[in-house]
């Protein structure tokens, strides 16, 4: 997609926002502005509800949200042919708004031929290699982050709903065990911070539940988009534990369990966090 067209898209987005504002004005009620109810489900709440007002405001406004540089790149890549087969994603999947809708709510998903779980990133690379005969994207590359964010953002507002029974059950159990297992010199489990102490302050950090529904997300500290596996690695290293590799089975299973913990929460890719 050309720069001009991207510009046009942005104008359309601005149009939508203006319409929404007018809508609020006509409704005569802004009582719900700033309410974060939609970021909660049952006893679960997104990191959004723990984020500072300024950080939320960046996420709320697609123009202020710095992650849109990556979303726009993902959109451009979607229809760019690559690889020996001369195909692009759109050759087979047409309009991502239709075909990718709901993907983020279902991944990681069990893959019969692999005999294990696959994450969205892995599915994208399966398509690149098998369907396009193109090189796989590197995990934390700008292309992979862009494409994953673009795909996941098609599910914005839809409820997280990973399948954890049937063939996925043993992988779910592994992810759960990982979440509850202590590790590192500081000997802490994910659970210690994100279950037992969500809502408490660790020095200047307000601990959230460690939900996955905003990923890939823009982290102010990273000054860029990052994958959920990058976050897992960071949380492992903070307790002085050896991290696992990007795309490792351990992290994909953990991602499945974390996804289940956030069941019912809306997908909010691309989120903004500090």
């Amino acid at each position, binding site marked *: 997609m050309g720069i001009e067209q991207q510009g046009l898209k942005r104008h359309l987005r601005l149009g939508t926002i203006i319409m929404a504002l007018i809508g609020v004005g006509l409704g005569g009620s802004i009582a719900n502005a700033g309410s974060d109810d939609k970021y909660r489900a049952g006893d679960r709440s997104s990191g959004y509800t723990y984020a500072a007002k300024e950080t939320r405001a960046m996420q709320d406004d697609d123009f202020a949200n710095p992650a849109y540089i990556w979303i726009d790149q993902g959109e451009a890549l979607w229809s760019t042919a690559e690889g020996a087969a001369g195909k692009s994603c759109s050759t087979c999947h047409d309009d991502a708004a239709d075909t990718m809708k709901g993907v983020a709510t279902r991944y990681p998903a069990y893959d019969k031929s692999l005999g294990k779980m696959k994450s969205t990133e892995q599915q994208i690379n399966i398509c690149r290699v098998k369907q396009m005969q193109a090189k796989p994207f590197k995990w934390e590359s700008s292309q992979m982050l862009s494409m994953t964010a673009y795909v996941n953002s098609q599910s914005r507002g839809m409820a997280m709903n990973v399948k954890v029974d049937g063939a996925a059950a043993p992988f779910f159990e592994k992810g759960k065990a990982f979440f509850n297992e202590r590790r590192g*010199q500081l*000997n802490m489990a994910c659970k210690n*911070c994100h279950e037992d102490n969500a809502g408490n*302050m660790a*020095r200047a950090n307000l601990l959230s539940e460690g939900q996955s529904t905003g990923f890939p997300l823009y982290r102010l500290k990273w000054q860029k988009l990052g994958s959920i596996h990058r976050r897992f690695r960071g949380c492992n290293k903070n307790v*002085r534990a050896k991290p696992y590799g990007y795309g490792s089975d351990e992290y994909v299973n953990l991602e499945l369990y974390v996804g289940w913990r956030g069941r019912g929460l809306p997908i909010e890719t691309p989120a903004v966090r500090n």
Partner: protein
Amino acid sequence: MAVAVVAMAAAMPVVADAGVALVKYEVTGGESIAKSLTGKPGDAAKGRGLAIHRKKGNCLACHAMPIPEQSFHGNIGPDLAGVASRYSAGELRLRLVDATIVNKDTIMPAFYRTAGLHRVLKKFKDKTVLKAQEVEDILAYLLTLK
């Protein structure tokens, strides 16, 4: 009163800081280490600094403490103001050495332990978070919090 010797599982000495073996200690009653780890008195001023230091005690990550010049004290654990009037030196020493002996589910790190840890980063492998004397220094500081 039950006496348990911890830290030395087998005959092999556990390596702590740069090849220094972990000091043996005795837990009495499951809640106290009465004897100093080093025999050398702790330095309370040093201990205060170590309690603040993010790569050492980092106690402020989880505890409010009477250290007003530092902003953002955590609230994961209880406020440590007055902690020396609630606990004896031996009880405080045990909590610093390995709080999981008192409460196996605690989030508080064991500051003087190398055994039974999982996937420790190479840089920290077989090393304790605090050296024996650093435990004694922080303890000396805690004992000023009456």
